[in-house]
């Protein structure tokens, strides 16, 4: 038996080596912030207007909707699944909100948001049920519902459009209003990301998501209700996408059948760039939201420095690959640090 003091010393030494390893894991979020600073600084040198109040407001509002969607997508991806249908869910929810206002101009805002939430939850329930009950891979299921929901949206909307003049001013204001210079949408996203980040750390159900994504078979052996947790993840993702539809409409002011097309890929790119492992088990909502902000900032920056928007897509793709390469590199680097040395009994 070693003395307690020696014990403590050993544990502390070990802890310090883990701190290095863990910091490397968390380095991701710092890394995104760093990249963000570099992009903003470089662009501002080229064009000082990039840091103007209105420009920052635009950046935040633009990133807000992707960041909201990224919350739900992070939850799903952490469980080693994926939700490709969120763009379509956002689209149909936005159109439904528009139609409600067009046909009942004096309806209360609460009702409108309930409609958006309800549509999102319904879509999430369908996704979750097929994935967990029929045991079909979520990639295929949500690819299917992506097209089905978009199809229904298209059939419903036809060539029609709901525009800002049909929406009440109070609703439109959500999209452009500010408090102390910060757009409402930005505040909503920051609060939501904060709550979700905290919840994902603090509740049993949320830790179950991580356990499932880390090793589904072990989760089952440990008595984690895998099916109902995965179902819940899809319902949450659907619900968030539904709400995001209402916010989307308030921001853009008009909606037709193609609202939100392709959003799923922007969101997944943001989530992966933000350090959420695509095979589940690790990553944070905060990281995903920062990823959304970074990608959106790069988009805007390229416009400001007069680079064609085609390049911004290529750059987003490049960043995605860089993020994955970075993950791999870190994993390889960190593995030896995490491996315990053989010890004899104390």
């Amino acid at each position, binding site marked *: 038996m070693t003395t307690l003091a020696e014990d403590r010393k050993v544990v502390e030494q070990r802890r310090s080596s883990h701190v290095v390893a863990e910091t490397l894991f968390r380095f991701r979020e710092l890394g995104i912030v760093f990249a963000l600073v570099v992009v903003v600084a470089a662009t501002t040198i080229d064009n000082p207007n990039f840091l103007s109040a209105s420009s920052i407001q635009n950046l935040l509002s633009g990133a807000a909707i992707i960041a909201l969607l990224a919350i739900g997508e992070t939850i799903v991806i952490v469980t080693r699944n994926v939700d490709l249908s969120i763009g379509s869910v956002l689209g149909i929810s936005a159109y439904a909100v528009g139609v409600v206002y067009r046909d009942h101009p004096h309806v209360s805002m609460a009702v409108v948001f309930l409609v958006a939430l309800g549509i999102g939850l319904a879509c999430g329930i369908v996704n979750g049920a097929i994935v967990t009950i029929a045991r079909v891979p979520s990639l295929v299921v949500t690819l299917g519902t992506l097209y089905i929901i978009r199809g229904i949206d298209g059939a419903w909307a036809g060539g029609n459009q709901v525009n800002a003049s049909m929406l009440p001013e109070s609703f439109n204001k959500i999209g452009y209003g500010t408090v102390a210079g910060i757009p409402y949408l930005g505040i909503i996203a920051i609060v939501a990301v904060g709550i979700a980040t905290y919840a994902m750390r603090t509740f049993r159900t949320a830790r179950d998501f991580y*356990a499932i994504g880390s*090793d589904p078979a072990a989760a*089952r*052996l440990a*008595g984690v209700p895998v099916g109902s947790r995965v179902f819940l993840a899809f319902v949450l993702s659907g619900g968030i996408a539904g709400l995001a539809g209402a916010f989307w409409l308030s921001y853009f002011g008009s909606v037709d059948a193609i609202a939100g097309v392709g959003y799923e890929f922007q969101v997944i790119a943001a989530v992966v760039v933000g350090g959420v492992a695509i095979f589940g088990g690790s990553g944070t909502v905060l990281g995903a939201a920062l990823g959304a902000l970074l990608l959106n900032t790069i988009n805007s920056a390229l416009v400001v420095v007069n680079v064609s928007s085609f390049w911004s897509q290529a750059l987003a793709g490049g960043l995605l690959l860089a993020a994955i390469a970075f993950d791999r590199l870190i994993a390889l680097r960190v593995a030896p640090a995490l*491996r315990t040395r053989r010890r004899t009994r*104390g």
Partner: protein
Amino acid sequence: MDTASPEPLLSLEHAEKSFGAVRALADGDIALFPGEVHGLVGENGAGKSTLVKILAGVHRPDAGRLVLDGEEAIFDNAKQSQSAGIAIIFQEPTLFPDLTVAENIFVGMQPLKRFRRIDGRRMRREAAAVFQQLGVRLDPERLARGLSIADQQLVEIVKALTTNARVIVMDEPTAALTTTEVERLFGIVETLRARGNAVLFVSHRLEEIFAICQRVSVMRDGRHVLTKPIEELTTQSIIRAMVGRDMDALFPTTPSEPGAVVLKVDRLTREGVFTDVSFEVRGGEIVALAGLVGAGRTEVARAVFGIDRSDAGSVEIDGRRLPPGSPTAAMAAGIGLVPEDRRQQGLVMDFSIERNIALASLDTVRRAGLIPRGAERRFARDWALRLQLKYGKLTNPVWTLSGGNQQKAVLAKWLARKPTLLIVDEPTRGIDVGTKAEVHRLLSELASQGVAVLMISSELPEVLGMADRIIVLFEGRVMREFARAEASEEAIMHAATGIVEDAA
């Protein structure tokens, strides 16, 4: 020192369990008493793991009773078994690599504070306290990724302790441990016992059973054979109970004169898997690789065939050295491999029977770079006929065949290449008795035609009945080599469990 109270904490009575046509457990019976370590031994396939999984709530028995604290209990899933106070430590620990050690310990049972939030501080404190009690230094805040198997097992044990489990089941916990780690584990098991827990200790290693158990149960062919206090048992009597069955006269003996050396394995080593393995197989000879699961038999075969690269040593066929790590070269040199897992490795389950049979012989069937369907079918029909394959249509997917006929299809695939060395890994696992005898006849016919056969089998009667020579592996090393005449089930089991005998 019989410390047991008369009332068992947990008992399983006359449990049965079948998987399809395979009967894994015919009569599972065990009673676990508080303050007692109960050893469970038996050969591979004796039904130990099935019994453990029933206790774990992973499998539901088809018949029989599970009695907990004198009352009948039914476990539908792992959670129910857990909340009944049963903790299972599986051979392969099942931790979450992305979660911290403390989180792994408390998964699903994290201590809560107000508003059902997880109390992270208390969680870490409690984990650290248990580690200290056990005299283990492990940081509860580190990620589980990268922990050694021994430390992973420790985490599982601590998990069991924090759930206040009264019954702790360890399924071959020492299989992957070093000697010092085993000692540490024994210390912990002793602590558990002293606290009044019931421990079920499943192991192949008889020395370990004698070191820590107070009572031993033996299983054979899915049945409970005996349960006795350790004082009434000897190594001899346990081994006799493990193997004690009559030799069936199922085995054809086609005597053949061994020819030239076909396969020469010299000091083959793959680090951490097997070490310094040397043996020869002559033409016309059947050589068995015996040993327990995990002794490295399949791994040696894979290295000979070049699926896994060896780190040292050489493999020669007919005196020509094979390049390591190349199945293509092995096939060109005339080796065929009938793998252990025919569904995953032996066959392409969704391909038709004819395509599976012709798969390894496409060079023969191919005409100008194309594969004519007619030629493929004629080729497959010929071999299906020679092996008396029972099938509906050759175009049916191969999964429509019964297990035994699937195995024949794999054999046909390799025999069609006219191999000089055929490696068969568990050739008769999970197939019916009739087909089993046919496979045996086939192997011995092959040998009589001069083919060298290397057979891996966990069934001792098969090993004794078929093989001309028997090589016993233990923990990746050649333990002993027997000629047919000097081998017996007892002697093989001795060698396979690592008991060194004086050469008589």
